[in-house]
Structures are given as C-alpha cells and as structure tokens.
C-alpha cells in the first residue's frame, strides 16, 4: 500500500472520489478509531464516575487535612512565628490566643470545633475533650469587661447599626485589621442564624479585637480614618490605655490548663497544613508529633501486626491452595475429557455458590456445637467437655478461605496443565527416569506458570478479603480489611481508613503488575 502511493512514476494513487488514496485511507482509519471510541465512551465514562472517582476520592482523603486550617485559620497563621523547639518552648504569645479566641468563637457556633477535636484526638489524646470544654466555656470568658468598658465610654458602641456602618466603610480593614477579620466571622454567624446584622448585639470577641487593635495601632493610624464613627474611634483610642485589660492566655488556661501546654500547640501546628502524611504514618505505627515522626506507643502498634498477619495468612492460604489444587488439576488434565468435565463441575459448583453460603457452611461445620465436633464426640475421639475450638481464630479463617479460593487455584493450573504434552513424560520414562525424576524434572517445571498464576490470584484475592475473616476470624483471624471497615463504620476515622486502603491498593496493584508480566491480564478466564 505504501509502496504504491510512494511510487514516483505513477504519482500519488487516487481513490474513486479523486482524493489521494493515502489521505482517504487515513480518513477511514480515523473514522474507524472514532467509531470504536464512541462505542467505548459511555462505559468508560460510567466506570470513571462510578468507580475511578471514588477510588481517587479515597486516595485524596488519605492525605487531606484541611479541617485544621479551615476551622482555626487565624490560629494556624499566628502559630507560624511560634516554634515547638522540642517541647521546650513556652506557650505561644497573646496574639495566638487572640486568634484562637476568634476562631473558636466562630467554630462554636457551627459546632465544627468538635469535629476538629475528634480529628486532633487521633493524634494526641485529650484534644477532643479539650475543645469541647473550650467550646462550652468560651462564651463565659471575662472579656465581657471590654464590652462594658466600651459601652460605658460611649453608649453608641452598643448600637449594632453603628457597628455595621463602621465595619462596612472602606479602609477600615487597614486601620482595625483584627476587628475587621473578626467581624467577618460575626457576619457568617449572624447570616447562618437568619438574623439581621444591624439588629444583633456583637459578641464580646468583637470588642476584644477592637481593644487589641486600638492598643496596637499608632494614634496616627486611627486619626487617619475618616469614615463613619471616626469620632468614636478617636475617643476610644484615647481611652483604651486606661481600660482594665484581660489576659486571653489566662482566660484559656482558666478553662483548661492544657492550653498552656506546648504539646497541644505543637500538635495544632504539626497538623496545620492542608495536606498531611499523618494518616499514612499512623497506618505504619508511626505518629507525627510536634517533635517530628515518632513510633506509636507500644500498646497502640497494631497496624504493622495486622499487615504482617494479613500477609502471613494469605501466604498460608496460598500454600494450602497449591497443596490441594495441584493434585486436582493434575487429575483433571490427565483424565479423558468426558470424565474431567464431570469432575470439573465439582470445582465449579463451589465457585458459583454464594460466598455467604460457603461461609455459613463452615460456620455450621466448625463451631463448637457444630457438625465436625459432634462427629468427633460421637466417635469418642474428643470428650464432650473439651470440644475443639476451630472457629473464630486463625484456623477457621484459613480453612474457610482455602475452601473459598481453591477454585481460583485449580482453574488456572488446569488450563496450564492441559497444554503440557504427555510425550515429554513418556520420553523421560523411556530414557530411564524414575517416576519421581520424571515428575520433578520434566512435568513440574512445565506446570510452574500455572502455579504462579494461581498463587498470585489467590494471594491478591485473599489479602483484600473482608466477609469471611469478619464472620469466622474472631479476634486473631482478622485481616487489615476488617480494620478498614472498622474505621469507616465504627471509629469514623475516615482518613486512616483511606490511608490503610491506599496501602492495600498499592500492594494489590503491584501484585497485579507482576501477574500481568507472568500471565497477561487479558488471559483472565472465568472457568
């Protein structure tokens, strides 16, 4: 085709409508490609939305940590200047406490301080109760002293409409930065309650910020302001130096003495960035402390144990599947087709039977008042008093999962063994090899690809198993997936669940990559 179009003597070959053949072929090819893509597109879109997006969301949640910087944004900024310094640092400055005061005054109204508390409680115990306690106490702080003093100075400070006029005039944010910032919080609170801003008496934290601004700003800055209420501001600026002041630090420490603790501030600072590796560290039994990455206390190190157990038990299940599956696959591949098809039904029936049916069958068989124990007692092999404990432990999980996953070992092994020509075996035997040598040196090496395919399949399936370990695993036979489920539905630590899931997903994808290299993903067969 290309030679024809490129041949110089004939010039470009033309198709029926006069366009060069090369070009019209290209158009046809493009049209073909587009048609194929158009057929695939609906499904691809569907899978992307209903499946890939959820997975991406999970990956995102495993590092997402916006709750701290969203709930206490001013505190996070104010803490930039503060250094934990290995726990030697003193409690942060009054500015930080002022920022926290405003942040929590707003968070309290939206009840987000409890969510922040439960998030930080995963890292440092006591944070949850600390924040709840503070949320309750923050409205009763002595800062109402400022409010009274301002109102005494000029009764107009009690008028919400005056406040609105001042705070909405341009340029006020330069003169009174902290008050303007706090006012925005106040605005959100009032709007959420469906109240009118001009009718609601501002809360103490607004007056506190006004006091702080007036103290901090030079007199020239205040006098440069010419908007509404400038006379009130100038008057107040002259008077604030005589006001009785309240230490916010002392107020917070009065609510809970932990607010003077550098550990608490270190935790807030360590988790202040919107993305954090904290969940991943927790999933490998480390923790992000103010002083850096540390090991979890020994009594809380469970994830490495669980990962290790998941790996170990999957290995055992894989091993027993090889042991039980190999003879069956060998038998099936060496029998006449009619017989082997009949026997294959015995393999496919469990494969097709509901997972829960098989799990309940094992529960029936293995439990202490179950069928196997009854038979053993009836035979007199085991006393009625000391029935075997075969369920709710590792043994139960291994037996039930070996049974459930055995078809996934047998089917790939069978399809590989069917292709091994028996002539090799006969040749080896006729050359004088013993049965064992023939099997081990000639047959077995040819069946290794089948073992590889089946093993990886069984291993991948078993490390992600949830239902069977949950039902027959008890406490010693559970997998990492049970922990993920626990964090989603019981402890509600979604970030940690997402991080554990991400690690598990990475392991599975790595194994699938290996599987693809060995077998090819297209060769997945369904029996």
């Amino acid at each position: 085709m290309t030679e024809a179009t490129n041949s110089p003597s004939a010039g470009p070959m033309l198709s029926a409508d006069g366009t060069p053949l090369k070009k019209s072929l290209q158009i046809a090819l493009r049209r073909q490609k587009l048609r194929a893509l158009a057929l695939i597109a609906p499904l691809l879109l569907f899978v992307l939305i209903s499946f890939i997006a959820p997975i991406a969301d999970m990956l995102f949640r495993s590092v997402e940590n916006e709750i701290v910087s969203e709930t206490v944004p001013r505190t996070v900024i104010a803490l930039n200047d503060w250094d934990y310094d290995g726990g030697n640092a003193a409690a942060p400055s009054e500015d930080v406490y002022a920022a926290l005061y405003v942040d929590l005054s707003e968070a309290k109204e939206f009840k987000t301080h409890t969510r922040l508390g439960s998030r930080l409680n995963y890292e440092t115990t006591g944070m949850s109760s600390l924040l709840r306690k503070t949320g309750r106490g923050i409205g009763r702080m002595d800062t109402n002293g400022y409010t009274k003093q301002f109102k005494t100075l000029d009764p107009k400070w009690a008028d919400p409409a005056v406040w609105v006029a001042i705070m909405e005039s341009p340029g006020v944010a330069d003169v009174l930065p902290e008050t303007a910032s706090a006012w925005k919080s106040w605005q959100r609170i009032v709007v959420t309650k469906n109240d009118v801003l001009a009718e609601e008496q501002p809360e103490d934290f607004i007056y506190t910020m006004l006091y702080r601004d007036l103290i901090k700003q030079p007199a020239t800055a205040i006098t440069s302001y010419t908007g509404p209420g400038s006379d009130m501001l100038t008057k107040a600026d002259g008077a604030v130096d005589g006001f009785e002041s309240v230490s916010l630090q002392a107020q917070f420490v009065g609510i809970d003495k932990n607010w003077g603790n550098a550990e608490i501030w270190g935790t807030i600072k360590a988790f202040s960035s919107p993305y954090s590796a904290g969940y991943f560290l927790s999933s490998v039994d480390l923790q992000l402390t103010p002083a850096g990455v540390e090991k979890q206390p020994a009594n809380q190190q469970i994830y490495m144990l669980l990962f290790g157990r998941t790996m170990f038990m999957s290995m055992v299940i894989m091993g027993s599947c090889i042991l039980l599956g190999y003879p069956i696959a060998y038998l099936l591949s060496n029998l006449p087709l009619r017989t082997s098809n009949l026997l294959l039904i015995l393999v496919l029936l469990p494969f097709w039977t509901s997972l829960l049916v098989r799990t309940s069958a094992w529960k029936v068989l293995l439990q202490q008042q179950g069928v196997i124990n009854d038979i053993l007692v009836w035979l007199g092999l085991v006393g009625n008093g000391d029935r075997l404990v075969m369920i709710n432990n590792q043994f139960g999980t291994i037996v039930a999962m070996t049974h459930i996953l055995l078809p996934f070992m047998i089917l790939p092994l069978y399809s590989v063994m069917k292709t091994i020509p028996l002539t090799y075996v006969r040749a080896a035997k006729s050359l004088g090899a013993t049965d064992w040598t023939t099997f081990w040196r000639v047959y077995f090496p040819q069946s290794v690809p089948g073992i590889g395919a089946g093993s990886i399949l069984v291993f991948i399936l078993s490390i992600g198993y949830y239902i069977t370990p949950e039902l027959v695993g008890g406490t010693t036979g559970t997998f990492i997936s049970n922990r993920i489920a626990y964090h989603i539905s019981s402890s509600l630590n979604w970030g940690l669940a997402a991080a554990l899931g991400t690690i598990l997903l990475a392991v599975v994808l790595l194994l699938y990559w290996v599987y693809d290299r060995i077998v090819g993903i297209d060769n997945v067969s369904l029996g």
Partner: protein
Amino acid sequence: MRKFKKPAVDLIRFVLPIMALAGAGFGFLVGTTNGLPLAGTAIGAVCGVALAWVLATYVPSKRTGIAAATVLFAIVGLLLAGTGGVVGGLVVGFVLGWMTYWLSTGSYRASTPIYATPGQVLWHNTFKFICGAIFFFLIAPILTVMPLSFNAENFFTFTPAMLSFDPSGYSLKHYRDFFTNPDWQQALKNSVRIAPAATLISVSLGTLAAIGLSQPHVPFRRAIMAILISPMIVPLIISAAGMYFFYSRIGLQGTYIGVVLAHAALGIPFVIITVTATLVGFDKSLTRAAANMGANPVTTFFKVQMPLILPGVISGGLFAFITSFDEVVVVLFVGSAGQKTLPWQMFTGLREQISPTILAVATILVVISILLLTVVEVLRRRSERLRGMSPG
C-alpha cells in the same frame, strides 16, 4: 490392554488382608461409638474377611454381590441401631462389597499400565484417594447445609431425631420463616430490585464497549481495558470504602441509585471479558456481507452480530447478575437499611446467630447457582457451536 489376560489376584495373601483392614476400620468406628473399640475392631476385621471370601468365591456377579452385601449390612444396622443404623449399614455394606470386587477382579489396576510395579499401582490409587478427599473437601460443606436446613430445631447441627430419620426431626419451618418473615421478604425484594437494574446497565454499556474494543485500531486499548477491568482487580473493601466516601459526598450514599451504580460498576468487567472472548471468534466478513447487501449498521448489529454473540452477552449478564446478587461488602457501605439485600441479611444473621433460616436461604441460593451454572455451560457450548459454524 484388554488383549492381555488379566493377572490373577491372590485372594488369600492380597484381598483378604486388605479387606480385614477395611473391616477393622469400620469396626473401630462402630465400636468406639458403643464404647468397645477393641472388640469392634476385631469383629469388623472378621466380618470384612468373611464377606470378601464369600463374595469372591461364590458370587461372580459384581452387581448381585454388592447389592447383597449392602442389604445384609443394612439389616444388621437396623437391628443394632434402628433407622439411623440402616444408612450406616447401607454405606458400610456398599463400600465393603464394592472394595471386594475392586480388589478381587483386578480392576484396581485397570487404569495403570500392565507393566506398573505394585508400588506404582499403590501410589496411583493413593493419589486417586487423595483427590477424592479434596473433592470431598470442596463439596461436603455445601452439601451439609442442605439437610440441615430441614432441621425441626433451631440448631446449626444434626439432632438425634434427624440422624435416626425420624420424620418429626425434619420440618419446613425455616423455609416457612423465610417466606413469611418481613425482614427476609424485604431483603429478597431489595435484591430482586437491585440486581436486574445493575445487570441491565452493565450488560448494555458493556456489550457496546466490548464491540468497540474488539475493533482493530483502538487507541489506548490497554489503558482503557485496564480501567474497565479495574473493578474486578481492586479488593472489594477498597471499592466499598472509596464509594462510601465519594457517594456520600455527592448524596448517593444510602440510596437505591447509589447501590445500583456501584453494583453495575462491579459487574462490568465480567461482561467485558465474556463478550470480548465471544467476539474474538466473530467473523467480520459477516457484517461486511450484511452491509454489502444494504443493511444499515443498526440492522446489521441486531440481525447479524447480536444473534451470534448473544450467548456471550447472556453469560456475561449472568455473571454480572450473580455478582450483584451475591455482593455484600459494597452494599453494606453504600446502602442503608432501606437497601438491605439478601446477602446483607445473611451477613447480619451469621454475625448475630439469629436463626437457621440462613441455612434455608443458603439451600435456595445453592439451587439457584446450580441452575445458573447449567445455563452458562449450555450457553458456552452453544456459543462454541455457533462460532464453529461460521466460516474462517
């Protein structure tokens, strides 16, 4: 092999000792249940030898011999242990009778070459026995569930009444419970509402995409395939976690639509795999011929392509259906109490040990899966036949 004369089997030195061992084994079992293991073993051995000798010497017809031994032992069982003993007697009699002929006629070495050494024959038969045991391991748990579902008591094990085949030990009450209990009926209804909808989505979209994927020159074919197959690769708990997070973000968590979407996504890989496998053998010249005769693409698809790939589509659909019908992990998280499906109800039942109604449901599900397995197998054969018919 038939041409050779079968080597004679030594009755005294080979058959009788083995039968003595077999008889002793059964005798030991019967003896221990009666508290007399030693006496049982001895009596069993004597019985085994006597039976083997009588059958091998005087009853040349295999069928008559086995029948006689079975009936004899059944009667002995009846006398010793009542109705329950009959079954034991039948089994022991059949096994001993069959074994006698298996050994004495030399059929135990029929499937090994004539030159095989005794060791090889022994190994061959041991291997068969091991395979039998593994098959037993595969099937027995499922078969145990079935009789237990007719238990008259609320136990998860065989009662003495069941073992002695007392009709009062059996009842259909667990089935009755399943069909009258509102919880189970609601669960069944939910399953029946969710699975077909999910199957419909995955089959319709999946078949189109499979046809697209089987065209030559599909750009990014491997990447697209990887994405479409991924719901099968990713462990269910991870899919469930991701869907729970994402669907609750967009307000689909705990809704019927959410569960259907999730199940449809899980079923898609099965449809893709089965339908592309069917399309591999599809003869493209058929569609070209149809187009040549003036059929438009839609007609070609429905009149020519669809009938030929229909078996693959249906079996893919069955896979998708069973995936949804069987699925519990994802629905546990994505669904709420209003979407409680049959597997979910079983899961809670198993965790809290409510009632053996679970076993009745399990039996029904096993029967359904046997039916589905048969349908898929028939379709597979039919698809191979259809593809064999098409030229090229």
